[in-house]
Each structure stands twice: as structure tokens, then as C-alpha cells.
């Protein structure tokens, strides 16, 4: 199967993010060969991996999938979704698969759906660790088996090969667990023989949909990959790609804008050229893909750090605002004393953060601004070993957050709680703990591919 070019349609940066349906219709008119869309990211924090739940609403995912499944069926082209359910856990894949099943039934579409699972068991990874095949990525240190065991969920980021295997196995729709953002768009062009350099660079440019255009809110993009490079254009005819908008996207959410590591090698774009073909299409040539000596798969893991309760009050009184840091230091001291007296807990046995929104909550000591605030929201965030303790600590702080004066006041102020009750239980709190890569013998070794016939192929 050889062809001159492959057209990749990316409707949006994230499944569930929404897009005008007519932009997808336009992509089909332009001859799209595959629809690729990312379903997740670590960008919104460790909660989604830790809890195995999605950031997006089921109704928003269903709305987007309805348009995309209809389009894939009408054009007879594959649809690939990566990092299903935000974090790409098995529960995330099953969640998107369930929504897909419902939409297919409602629309009377008979598409063959494959799922690719990327969740890992700590015990399996410990075998790799024992054989010296797990390496830290900066700034991480060496991995301890106890860290693996502490994770609620661990996922491995697949490259394009497991997705390609699912397509080769007869899938019309591939719902993948955690995958690199680029693998989702690169899988089909690589499968049909497009060169690695232009394919991977194109995949990086289109992974966030319209982010590489002059209007990121107007829908997605179409990239045409061929033997010598790729061309990218927005799906909305009123929007443009410019050499600057395309080149600048290599900077987005990447630590290094010239070299990006994928499981199979490194995308090298330092020598790439960006040229306007007309006022809204950009041609990119000169991208290279440097194969790595060892195929590596990156791991992500999240564990519970404790349970959190939040409380929120607000201050408008100019006298207190004039001494807000003194007031906050007093609040911290009083909470610590009262918790020791009532619960018998010492500071090392729980933790809390006092954030002065309107003063310096976001930047803290880094804030260059020195003007006094007009009003301040005071957030207390408590982390303890269990929810009951976290809430007890927040409740002990409640009278202080209502009435604490500054040291020079001779009356008790009453401050402005935002809600009743003031405390909100946040449940388990998580943290990312893995930043490591595994040397594997095969690109599909860590992934389970369920073809439409439900056979389990390794």
C-alpha cells in the first residue's frame, strides 16, 4: 500500500473540547484520510490519573464523538482517539468505549472498534526495574519499588505501533489508553509509508488542533504529509496558518523546542523551514526523525498524598488589609496551637496552606507587585491522613477565620465567609510520582490490544 500523500484531520485539541461540525465536513471535502484526536493530558493535574476519572463531561465527549463517528463512517476513514478519559487509564478507555457504543447504536453505524490498554501493574514494572531497565528523566532520581507500589494508577505512554496494530487488525475506530500526543496523529501516515521526519513534525504541529493557527478557537486543522514535507491549513476557511503561528507551536508545552523525544527516537526540527504557500497554508520541510538505539516508553503514576478539606473566607476591612501578612502569620500560628491542643497533632502529622487571593496567592514571594490589595480571599487548604481529621482541622480554624483580629485591634472583627458551611471536603489528594522511562524489547510489549473480534493480541 503506497500513496503520494496522507491527509490528517485533527478537529480539536481535546475530545470533548468542542468544534463547529462544519469544520469537520470541510476536512472531509479536502480529502481527509484519517481523523485523529487527543483525549487527554497531564496538564490539569494528578487527580485524573489518581482517581481514574475524566476531566471532560460525558455529554461533551458524546457530542464530539457523534460528529466524528458520522464523519468517519461517511468517508470510510479511520478515527483514532488517544489518552482516553484524560489520563488514559483502563477505566478511561472503557468510559470512552461505552460512550462510543451508545453513539454508534443511536446513529445506526456499524463501525469496528478496537481498544488499546496502557495501564501497568507495579509488580510487572518491578521486573523491569530489577533488570536495570527503568531510567529517571530529569529532574527525577532513581526509582524505588515502594514508589511503584504506592501508585493508585500507572500508565505507560504508547508510541504509534500499538495504534497501528489495531488499525492493521481491522479497526475503523481505535480508542487508545495513554499515548504520546503525536502518536495519535502519526500512526496512520506511518502505517501507509509516509516518511518519519515530516510525519512526526506534522503530528506535533497538529496535536492541539487550531492552536497552530491565528484563531485557536475556530476549530481544527488538516495536515497533508508527503515524501518531502507537510502542508498545514485550518479547517475554517476564515482562519489562517502563518509561518510564525506554525513555527511557534513547537514552543507550546515543550521544554526543548528543537528536539522532542518519542518512544522510537527524537523529532529534530532545528533545520526545518516554514514557508507560506498562500495566505492561509504553510509548507514545512527539513524536519528529521532520529531513531533511538533503544526503544523507551515513558511512565506516569499518581498516588494519594492524603485527604483535603478547604475553607474560604474574605477580608474587606482596610485596617486588616494594611497588615495582611502579619494577620496571616498569626492565623498560621493560632491554627497550629489550637490543633495541637484539641487534636494532639503536631505540624509533621498534617499540613495546611494559607493562600491570600488578591494579595500574593498565585506567585507568593516571587510576586513583584507591592501595592496593598482592595480585598483578599483567604483560602485554607488542609491535608491530613484521613478526611475526618482534615475536616476537624478546618473546623478548628473556623472561629479564627471568622474573628481573628490583627495584634493591634481591641475588638473582634467578623470576616466574610463565602459559603455555609465554610468547609468543603475535597476527598483524596494526589501527586505525580513517576518521571521515568522503561527500555522495552517491543513497542507493543506494555500494551494490550483488543481487536474488534475481542481477541487479545500482545
Amino acid at each position: 500500500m503506497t500513496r503520494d500523500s496522507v491527509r490528517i484531520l485533527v478537529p480539536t485539541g481535546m475530545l470533548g473540547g468542542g468544534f463547529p461540525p462544519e469544520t469537520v465536513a470541510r476536512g472531509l471535502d479536502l480529502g481527509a484520510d484519517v481523523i485523529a484526536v487527543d483525549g487527554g493530558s497531564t496538564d490539569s493535574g494528578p487527580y485524573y490519573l489518581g482517581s481514574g476519572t475524566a476531566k471532560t463531561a460525558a455529554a461533551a465527549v458524546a457530542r464530539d464523538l457523534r460528529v466524528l463517528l458520522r464523519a468517519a463512517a461517511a468517508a470510510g476513514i479511520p478515527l483514532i482517539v488517544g489518552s482516553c478519559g484524560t489520563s488514559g487509564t483502563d477505566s478511561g478507555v472503557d468510559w470512552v468505549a461505552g460512550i462510543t457504543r451508545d453513539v454508534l447504536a443511536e446513529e445506526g453505524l456499524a463501525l469496528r472498534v478496537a481498544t488499546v490498554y496502557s495501564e501497568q501493574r507495579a509488580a510487572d514494572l518491578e521486573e523491569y526495574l530489577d533488570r536495570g531497565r527503568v531510567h529517571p528523566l530529569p529532574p527525577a532520581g532513581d526509582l524505588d519499588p515502594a514508589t511503584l507500589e504506592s501508585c493508585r494508577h500507572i500508565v505507560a505512554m504508547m508510541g504509534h505501533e500499538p495504534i497501528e496494530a489495531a488499525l492493521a487488525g481491522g479497526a475503523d475506530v481505535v480508542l487508545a489508553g495513554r499515548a504520546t500526543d503525536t502518536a495519535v496523529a502519526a500512526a496512520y501516515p506511518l502505517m501507509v509509508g509516509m516518511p518519519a521526519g515530516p510525519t512526526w513534525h506534522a503530528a506535533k504541529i497538529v496535536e492541539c488542533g487550531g492552536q497552530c493557527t491565528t484563531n485557536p478557537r475556530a476549530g481544527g486543522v488538516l495536515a497533508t504529509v508527503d515524501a518531502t514535507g507537510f502542508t498545514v491549513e485550518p479547517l475554517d476557511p476564515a482562519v489562517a496558518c502563518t509561518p510564525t503561528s506554525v513555527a511557534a507551536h513547537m514552543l507550546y508545552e515543550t521544554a526543548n523546542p528543537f528536539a522532542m523525544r518519542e518512544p522510537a527516537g527524537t523529532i529534530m526540527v532545528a533545520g526545518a523551514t516554514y514557508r507560506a504557500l498562500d495566505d492561509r497554508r504553510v509548507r514545512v520541510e527539513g524536519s528529521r526523525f532520529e531513531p533511538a538505539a533503544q526503544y523507551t516508553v515513558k511512565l506516569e503514576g499518581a498516588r494519594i498524598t492524603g485527604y483535603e478539606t478547604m475553607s474560604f473566607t474574605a477580608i474587606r476591612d482596610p485596617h486588616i488589609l494594611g497588615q495582611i501578612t502579619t494577620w496571616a502569620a498569626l492565623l498560621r500560628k493560632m491554627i497550629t496551637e489550637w490543633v495541637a491542643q484539641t487534636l494532639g497533632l503536631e505540624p509533621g502529622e498534617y499540613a495546611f496552606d494559607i493562600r491570600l487571593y488578591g494579595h500574593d496567592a498565585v506567585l507568593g514571594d516571587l510576586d513583584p507587585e507591592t501595592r496593598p490589595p482592595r480585598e483578599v480571599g483567604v483560602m485554607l487548604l488542609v491535608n491530613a491522613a484521613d478526611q475526618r481529621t482534615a475536616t476537624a482541622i478546618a473546623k478548628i480554624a473556623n472561629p479564627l477565620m471568622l474573628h481573628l483580629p490583627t495584634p493591634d485591634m481591641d475588638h473582634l472583627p467578623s470576616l466574610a465567609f463565602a459559603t455555609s458551611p465554610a468547609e468543603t471536603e475535597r476527598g483524596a489528594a494526589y501527586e505525580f510520582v513517576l518521571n521515568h522511562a522503561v527500555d522495552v524489547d517491543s513497542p507493543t510489549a506494555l500494551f494490550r490490544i483488543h481487536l474488534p473480534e475481542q481477541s487479545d493480541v500482545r
Partner: protein
Amino acid sequence: MSGKTVADLALEVRSKNAGPFWVTMELFMRDAAGYAVVADPGFLDEPVIARLYGVAADTIQIFRLPELNVVKISFPRPVVQGSLHDRDIHAGQHHVPLALLPLPDRGP
């Protein structure tokens, strides 16, 4: 002091996570003249970023892209994303100390 800041010469200054353990920020300058100011290591280098953000200078990477009039800066996140003391989950507001960096005084 001229009273002007880096932001006055920029189209956009932005910051964002680059994965859970890194933060990256970009100065998109208006023109080559503005680029020349911020790309000058005598004005903006690793020790300056280290002071602005309270991080170790040897962990900072600075990329200068003259064809885009962009300077890009990456360093490990001082506070791990989503932890108790992380007040900016996407690190999307951490461009401000860089944007408000006073420009060098060019004399009278």
C-alpha cells in the same frame, strides 16, 4: 530606571507546564530590536532567571530563536504540579515576574 518592562516590548509573554515536572515560558517580542534586548545574555541569563524564580541557575535552559523573535526559558517546576502548595496548576500565571522585569536603563 526607564520605568518600562519586558512586557512593553513584547507581543505576548506566557508560561505553561511542560509536563508535570517542568515549566516553560516564552517571550514573543514585537520586533528584532526588542528581541535583541531580551536575547542579550548581559540582560537576561540563567542567574537572572534563578533570582526571579528562586531556582538553581544550573537547572535553567534558555533557547534563543531569532527567526521568531522569541526567547524561551525552561526549568524544573519548583513546586510539583497539583501538590498542597501548588497555587498555579497549569503554571499559566508564572510569566508575570519575567514580564515585569525592568528594562535596562539606556541612559538619558
